Structures are given as structure tokens and as C-alpha cells.
């Protein structure tokens, strides 16, 4: 079942507005996402990554084309929770995903509402603890704490703890590392790999950091103005970019080993 397709998109588009003022956020794209693979969507701001991710989550509907999940069309009608049990997301701004007025723990516990059969209270507590430990947070550390009392990096791990509880088939991660430092970023990537390996999850990773995408993914999709301009195995895309967009993207990345912007002699006060 390893080659089974999770998602199949056939010529899907998403247009906002009408007539002259319309914006084509996603423009006639066709792709497939296989079971247990990590794919990355990379591209400039506004290129349509989030809109595409939202369509996979059933938060947006394509204006044309066909989008299949597990071989069946994703319909806009019916209880969305059925879809969300299988496809979950972590978003860019972790603070907006948690309610500021409830403790972290109570919000993790409320994730169980999405289950068809809710476990017993004792089991809920136990599974919350396990999920926290899975993302390297001692349950005691966050006991009684509210979202604003945690750092950005800790919050991002809380979102992943929620995923460890819900165990969806697919995880959509939209810029999950934008607020965290390089070390925490490395650990978030490790958690994503752990989710893929231990829970056989399929992951759609949205980012504009091609370095992260390169490290984590099995396939890399480069988007530009709603279209997919390059795709393939990360090494192929990086070594043999076919589109000018990808070439420019690679050029603009600040890399420690390469000249990036010319400057005069730096000034130091530190000795």
C-alpha cells in the first residue's frame, strides 16, 4: 500500500473575486501526493501555497478541477470533521491557534472532541502527557500555563503535541518553523520525521525556506504565481533547476559560504 495516493489534484484552480479584480491564487495545477511521503511547497510570498494547503484541508474549495483524497472527491458539503480527523494542520502563527483564555493543557485535552469515541478522562490525561513528552516537554513545565506564558518555540511544539494526540493520516504544516531559532527548528524537523516514521504520516510542508524543504522532503514543488514551475526529488530540483524562478530563488538564499550582497569592510566593537 506504500504507493497508494493520498491526494490527487487534477487541473485545480482557485480564483478569488470576479472579472477585472479577480485573483487567481492557484492556477490549474495537477499533482499527486503519495502515502507516507513528505512533500514541500516552496515559493515567494503570495504564490498560492497557503490557498493550496487550505484546499487540501477543505478550508477552501477549488473553483475548477478535481481534488481527490484517498481516491474520493473532497466535497464541500457534509460534516468537515470527518475530513479533519484524517487531515490536520499546524499553522504559521502558533499563538493564534490557541485560545489565550484557557490553559494549554485544557486545550490539548479538548482536542479529543474531534474523536468519534472520546476516551475516558484518565486515558485523556495519560495521552496528553505522552504527547507532551513526544515533543520533549515535561508535562510539569506547562502545568497551569496559558499560551502567552510560553515562548514561540514552545508554542510551536504544543501544536505538534496536538498532532501526536490526533494522529491524522496527513499533516499540513504551513511555515511551522518561522518563529523559532535554528536549534528548535532542527528539532521540529526531527518531530516531523518522527511523525512520518512512527505514525506513518503523510506530510505537506509549506515554506519559503528552500534549505528546510531540501532537508526534510521526498519531493519538492516550487510554486510561482499559482503555478507549479519545478518539481521533483530535492536533489534534482536544487542541482538542475529548470525554471528561472527556481534559479532566482536559489540565488537569493543567504548562504554562509557564498557572497550574497556586496558590502564594505565591517566595523566591530567586539574584541
Amino acid at each position: 500500500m506504500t504507493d497508494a495516493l493520498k491526494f490527487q489534484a487534477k487541473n485545480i484552480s482557485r480564483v478569488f473575486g470576479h472579472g477585472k479584480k479577480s485573483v487567481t491564487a492557484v492556477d490549474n495545477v495537477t499533482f499527486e501526493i503519495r502515502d507516507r511521503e513528505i512533500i514541500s511547497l516552496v515559493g515567494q510570498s503570495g504564490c498560492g501555497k497557503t490557498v493550496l494547503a487550505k484546499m487540501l484541508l477543505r478550508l477552501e474549495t477549488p473553483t475548477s478541477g478535481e481534488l481527490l483524497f484517498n481516491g474520493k472527491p473532497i466535497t464541500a458539503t457534509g460534516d468537515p470533521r470527518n475530513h479533519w480527523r484524517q487531515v490536520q494542520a499546524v499553522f504559521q502563527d502558533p499563538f493564534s491557534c490557541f485560545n489565550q483564555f484557557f490553559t494549554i493543557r485544557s486545550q490539548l485535552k479538548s482536542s479529543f472532541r474531534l474523536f468519534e469515541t472520546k476516551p475516558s478522562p484518565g486515558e485523556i490525561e495519560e495521552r496528553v502527557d505522552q504527547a507532551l513528552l513526544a515533543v520533549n516537554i515535561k508535562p510539569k513545565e506547562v502545568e497551569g500555563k496559558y499560551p502567552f506564558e510560553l515562548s514561540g518555540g514552545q508554542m510551536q511544539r504544543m501544536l505538534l503535541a496536538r498532532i501526536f494526540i490526533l494522529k491524522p493520516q496527513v499533516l499540513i504544516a504551513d511555515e511551522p518553523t518561522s518563529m523559532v531559532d535554528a536549534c528548535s527548528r532542527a528539532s521540529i524537523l526531527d518531530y516531523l520525521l518522527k511523525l512520518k516514521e512512527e505514525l506513518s504520516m503523510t506530510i505537506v510542508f509549506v515554506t519559503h525556506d528552500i534549505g528546510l524543504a531540501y532537508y526534510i522532503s521526498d519531493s519538492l514543488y516550487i510554486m510561482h504565481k499559482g503555478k507549479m514551475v519545478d518539481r521533483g526529488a530535492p536533489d534534482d530540483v536544487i542541482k538542475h533547476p529548470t525554471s528561472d524562478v527556481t534559479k532566482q530563488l536559489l540565488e537569493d538564499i543567504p548562504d554562509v559560504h557564498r557572497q550574497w550582497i556586496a558590502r564594505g569592510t565591517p566595523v566591530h566593537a567586539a574584541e
Partner: protein
Amino acid sequence: MTVSAPVRPLEQAASGPTPKPAKSNAVLEVEDLRVHYVTRFGHKIQAVDGVSFSLKQGEILGIAGESGCGKTTLVSGCMGLYIPPLFHTSGDVRIDGKSIVGMTLEQNRKEVLGQKIAMIPQGALNSLNPTRKIKDMAADMILSHDESADKKSINDRLRERFTRIGLDADHVLNSYPVELPAGTKQRCVIGISTLLNPKVVVADEPTSALDVSTQKAVIKLLFELMDQEIISSMLFITHELPLLRHVSSSIAVMYAGEFVEYGTTEQVIFEGRQPYSRALMGSMLSAEPGQKSRKPVAIEGAPPKLDKPIPGCRFAERCPVAQPDCRTTEQVLRIVAGRQVRCKYADTEVVEQVGGGL
């Protein structure tokens, strides 16, 4: 601390006042600054605990460190933005030789903020009021420090400045933010924040939500402002270490409210001597072919709580090469290999086992 590196010569504006012969050419001096929060339970959290550095004309100091290590708190302290629950504990901050601690917030807003030290807001794109024209927002910046400025002189100033930063001044000034593309809006935000030629610009994650191409344009603009002497030095905070490598002249790595390594960019990025800063640099990822096989280092565990004094090295709990005496011996900043380091073993091979890989 002593100053030894060569200073990039800055051209003197022909008509400007001749600078007074200051004893040092530091623009911003921070001396043993300590800053704390008071939580709703009355606990004191020492978020910045004894930080000292100075910024010279033309210098860009990059600050790196884990979420929650105190970077934003440090810059609030440097700007004198002590708004409860944030309080000044001790230490001094001087801009152009003049101390700004102990000022009231009102006095600070009038005399310091925007004028001597300015902040480029984090969500720059969303920091513009959508219902007002760019020129009105820009005029507010001038009026907040010079109530008597007349309309004509404000207009002239705005047109001159917007043209200088490469914008079509007439068009842009008369537009509403929504009518402008993202790149232009970003220029406007930076243009407005630096209208009053602040000595020091604080950029706290100015590019974290931007794609690489927009990010590059922002950095170019900041460099132009420095080259044109509109601003003279910068504090630059980012989680993007490769960016720090290209932008800053010096780097300070913070951990749990303290500097743990502070030196030139080359020293800190390529030859770090402190385990935490080495691990941080070792966790950098890049899209260079072949890098995929290199595993980035994640540091397990969490930084210590800052609500009570910590004996010994603050990083010892998580340090992969901690020695038995690290948890008990207090670590002080000292000079090793030409930079400041806070680690007893900084000058030994012990630290070399961590990170690296660059």
C-alpha cells in the same frame, strides 16, 4: 572594552555640524544592563541579566539565540521602553553619550524614540494603518517630535527622503497601503521609521515572514540607509543565521538572559568557542547539494527558568560536553581567542566536540 578593529571611514557631511571629539566613537553603549519582568503572581523574572556591549558608527550587531533567551527584552531595554510588567533593574544605556535610563516614558517618546533609536516593526507589512495615506503616517512621525513643523516643510522633507530611498515619491506618498505592492510597502515602513535619522536602528526579526527575494531587498535598503548615513548603526535580531552572517559585523549569542559569546561574525559563525553557540551554528541548514546528509543538531531540553538565581553555568543542564564542575562554578565572560566567551572550557578541546560542521 577596547576597540581595535578598523573603522570604515564615513564621509563627513559638508554642511553638517562637526562632531565633538567624543572619548569613544560608540553610538550606543550598554553597561551591565539588567531588566526584569514581574509576573502576575509577583515573581521576578530576570530576563536580561548583565549585558554589556557597544555599537560604533557603521557597526551592525547581530543577536542570536533560542526563543525566550531575552533578545526582544534586551532591545526594549536599550530603547528605554520600560512598560510594566517590564522594569529596569540596574545598569546603564547611553546613546551618543547620554543616558536614557530613568527617563519617563513620555520624555523618552519625545526625545529618544524615533529620533535617536528607532525600531523597524516585526510585522512591517501590517504595521501601516490601512485607512490613512502614506504621507499622513509619515507626517505624524515628524510632528511627534516637532509640533511646529509646517505643512510645506514636511512635504518637502518627505519627498526628498522617499526619492532618496528609491521610491516614486509623489505616487507613493499619495497612496493608501493597500494600493502598493508588498515590496514598496516594506520600503515605506522602513522609510517612515528612519525619517528622523535615528542613530541606532533596531530590527527585531524584520524579515522573518518574508520570502528570500523580499528579504534580500529589505537588507539592501537597510545597507543603503547606512551608506547614505541616514542611520549609523544597527541591532539586528534574527533566527536566520545565514542572514546574520551576511548582515552583521559582530554577533552576540544570548542564552538565558546573558551573552555567552560575543565577537566578530567570522569568529562566532565559523570558529565559535562556546558549546551553545557552536551547537546553534551547527544547526544551520542550507540548500547546498550534499548538505542533506548533514544532520542538524537539535539541543534537547529547555532553558532554565529565570525566576531564581542559577548556580554555575546556565547551559550546563543541556550542554553535551558539560564537566562535573560546570553546574557549580559560575561562568564569567572572558576573552578567549579574541572574543568574549562564557565557558570555563572555551580554550580547551572539550568545546570542539560540539556542533561545527560548517
